[in-house]
């Protein structure tokens, strides 16, 4: 794995950490600040800091250091969790997210001086002494790291050679008469209890050129009192003069007080220390083995070592040094961690999903073939079918992600909006655990952000207007997601003023989107806001304006195979409802016949289907028929003609009409011979297997093994109805 790839992992991890911190702080804000919640936030920031250090992002590291220190105080209970503090932490998190972004994009770090000062003030106010500028603290450390990162490309073998050279041979043979100095040492019992091995340290001393001058063996007891874990031996080494004392101390850095050291000619080997050093907890005398003999631990250790198991709980009770949270964590059965996951190459996963798609087709083909041979409804076939469906669902669920990862960004957006518009908005979220395809989740962020900005900017009124209307001065934004009949329904609702239809219509007329004399239903007026180039804000604000507004949102949703609808009530608010497929790989479609061909019409486009009566169809000019749908006329397109085929229904009364909704040309009615089925299908790209074809979105394999083309309804209708760009224009 290359350093760049590891860096990618780090940034992916940052996203997870930021989301975890965000939801933790949201819980705090809502009044839940138990240890687990605070710990989760701390861990998230801590983890970003660790990575920032490792990858040399100095600004990010310095900032997270301060943030972490404050969180640490919070965790220790030194700083009380109050609303003000949570708000500060939330703002700090926003800036952290900017920092991460800057590190990722290589941009300038955001200004954080005032926030850092504020965080430090929060620590200092409660912890007493002001803490020195932590960011500066971290700076020198950081400089090292930046170099360290460049070192990534260093010749590691050369480094390794240096190291082993140091370890394996004394630098030089001691010259006769060279001045030497003495070090005395005695490893105590604890040295081995912590998994250290004193012999390794002796070897390191030897590697520095030390020579063993004396080994003290007088303390070794009789065999029956011998405890192999005790340090009965002590040594004196004579060291070359050029070796510094610190180099020797360094060797014993890890072992600390568990090995007594003394330096100098006048010193001696430190005394044996048995009483003070507690024996290894598991080496306590087993009550049955040495009954009635309250001997010192050293005496019984040998006897008792084989009987270890029962002491394990005792070890826990003894070891007060272990921090309480750790003990608690160890004793409770661990619930599965929320984000526990393995990382898989997306390519492999998509391959699996492709194969499962093939399996679904093969299974359908088998059922059809057996059905033709008169074998059907057998138990095995039913089993195969249900297994296939289960496998398909499981495979899909691997790609599925909870929509919460998108929702969790919303509080941030609202805070940004609150500071730029002055409108404070409460957020109500439900269904954040609803899962949908990863690609859909990823591509949903942008339209959702836009809708939310739109809701706050245009939907929710100013506090004064709200009070005048008898509403709570604080607006409410409602986000919800749910599964509904195989699709995901996401709704973004506000309790604002609703769509001002008069203004929308006036604007649309002014912009030439509709003609002045057109009669439109309320719903149609609402939908005008999706027209390209439409914007109702008095002035184009920098929040949701920019002219590329809702039409882009609608296009994004459409690309995901979804639809967007509006429900708006004047004075009560507006609800945008997104209906999305669970996955992009499999879609719902209507299987239709035209002549001897079978086609698939994506269900996302279908509004309704009907068999027209004589009076429903009226001619327009020589070649065009219009369908009267409850008083509205929409053009009829005979698929036979549009596709250039020689067979199939020609006159509307010969077949079935499918009313479809399109992006560019409004509604149209497609004439087909008949509708034979409605089912899921696996999309195969024509572009990769053949070449792009106008009016065709792809192909799929039917249950009987035949290939059917999937219509690109938008493209086809636009092509068949030139000059019909939005029917009213």
């Amino acid at each position: 794995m290359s350093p760049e790839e590891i860096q990618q992992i780090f940034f992916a991890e940052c996203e997870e950490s930021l989301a975890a911190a965000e939801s933790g702080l949201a819980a705090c804000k809502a009044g839940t600040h138990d240890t687990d919640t605070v710990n989760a936030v701390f861990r998230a920031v801590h983890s970003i800091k660790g990575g920032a250090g490792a990858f040399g992002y100095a600004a990010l590291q310095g900032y997270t250091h301060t943030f972490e220190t404050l969180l640490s105080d919070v965790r220790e209970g030194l700083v009380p969790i109050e609303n003000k503090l949570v708000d500060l932490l939330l703002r700090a998190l926003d800036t952290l997210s900017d920092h991460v972004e800057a590190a990722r994009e290589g941009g300038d770090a955001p200004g954080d001086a005032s926030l850092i000062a504020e965080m430090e003030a929060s620590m200092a106010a409660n912890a007493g002494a002001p803490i020195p500028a932590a960011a500066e603290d971290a700076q020198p450390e950081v400089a090292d790291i930046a170099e360290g990162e460049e070192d990534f490309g260093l010749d590691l073998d050369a480094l390794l050679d240096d190291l082993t050279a140091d370890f394996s041979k004394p630098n030089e043979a001691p010259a006769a008469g060279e001045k030497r100095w003495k070090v005395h040492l005695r490893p105590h019992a604890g040295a081995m209890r912590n998994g250290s091995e004193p012999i390794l340290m002796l070897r390191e001393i030897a590697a520095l050129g030390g020579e063993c001058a004396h080994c003290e063996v007088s303390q070794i007891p009789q065999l029956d009192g011998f405890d192999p874990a005790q340090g009965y031996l002590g040594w004196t080494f004579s060291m070359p003069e050029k070796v510094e004392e610190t180099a020797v101390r360094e060797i014993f850095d890890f072992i600390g007080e568990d090995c007594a050291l003394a330096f100098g000619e006048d010193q001696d080997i430190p005394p044996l220390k048995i009483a003070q050093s507690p024996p290894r907890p598991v080496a306590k005398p087993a009550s049955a083995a040495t009954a009635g003999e309250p001997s010192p631990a050293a005496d019984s250790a040998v006897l008792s070592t084989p009987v270890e198991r029962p002491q394990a709980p005792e070890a826990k009770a003894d070891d007060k040094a272990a921090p309480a949270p750790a003990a608690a964590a160890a004793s409770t059965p661990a619930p599965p961690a929320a984000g526990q996951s393995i990382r898989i190459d997306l390519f492999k996963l998509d391959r699996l999903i492709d194969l499962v798609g093939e399996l679904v087709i093969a299974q359908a083909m088998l059922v059809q073939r057996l059905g033709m041979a008169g074998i059907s409804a057998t138990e095995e076939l039913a089993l195969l079918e249900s297994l296939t469906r289960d496998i398909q669902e499981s495979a899909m669920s691997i790609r599925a992600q909870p929509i919460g990862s998108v929702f969790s960004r919303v509080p941030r957006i609202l805070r940004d909006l609150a500071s730029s518009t002055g409108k404070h908005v409460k957020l109500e979220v439900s269904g954040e655990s609803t899962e949908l395809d990863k690609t859909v989740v990823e591509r949903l962020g942008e339209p959702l952000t836009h809708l939310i900005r739109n809701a706050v900017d245009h939907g929710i009124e100013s506090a004064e207007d709200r009070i005048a209307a008898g509403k709570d001065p604080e607006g409410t934004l409602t986000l919800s997601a749910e599964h509904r009949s195989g699709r995901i329904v996401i709704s973004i609702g506000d309790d604002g003023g609703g769509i001002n239809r008069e203004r929308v219509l006036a604007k649309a007329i002014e912009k030439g989107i509709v003609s002045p004399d057109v009669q439109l239903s309320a719903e149609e007026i609402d939908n005008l806001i999706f027209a390209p180039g439409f914007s109702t804000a008095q002035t184009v604000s920098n929040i949701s304006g920019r002219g590329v507004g809702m039409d882009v949102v609608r296009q994004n949703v459409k690309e995901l195979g979804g639809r967007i609808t509006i429900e708006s009530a004047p004075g009560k608010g507006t609800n945008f409802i997104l209906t999305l497929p669970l996955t992009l790989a499999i879609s719902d479609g209507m299987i239709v016949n035209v002549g001897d061909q079978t086609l698939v019409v994506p269900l996302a486009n279908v509004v309704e289907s009907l068999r027209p009566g004589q009076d429903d169809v009226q001619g327009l000019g020589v070649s065009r028929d219009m369908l009267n749908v409850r008083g509205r006329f929409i053009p009829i397109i005979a698929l036979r003609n549009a596709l250039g085929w020689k067979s199939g229904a020609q006159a509307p009364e010969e077949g079935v009409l499918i009313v479809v909704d399109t992006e560019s040309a409004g509604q149209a009615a497609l004439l087909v011979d008949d509708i034979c089925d409605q089912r899921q299908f696996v999309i195969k790209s024509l572009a990769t297997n053949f070449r792009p074809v106008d009016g065709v979105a792809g192909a799929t394999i039917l249950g009987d093994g035949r290939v059917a083309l999937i219509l690109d309804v938008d493209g086809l209708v636009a092509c068949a109805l030139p000059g019909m760009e939005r029917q009213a224009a």
Partner: protein
Amino acid sequence: MSRTTRVLTVDDSASMRALLNHALTSNGFAVSQADDGVSALEWLAVNEVDVVITDINMPRLDGFGLIEQVRGGTRHRDRPILVLTTESSDEKKARARAAGATGWIVKPFDTEKLVAAVRRVAH
């Protein structure tokens, strides 16, 4: 070293595991990974290892908890365990030692120091 030293790295951060893995494998160590204390214990129950390197702050079971369980068990209780710590204060060292750690590695680590620390404690 005649035999490859086997190292188990325990960290909930995938990037930290990847860094450790990169640094250690390129220096000839055999590296296995676990993402928290609980999965480390599960791994240790069925595998052999020479050195364990663990982070402190982890979900489910943290580094101190892991050390406690390892030292309190039988199979791996003498195993050297290095903790990854972001601070090198004496207090932190004492705490790690008291918890039963053999040594520590200060994050952010450089490869040289990491390798030296592992070699120092590997039996």
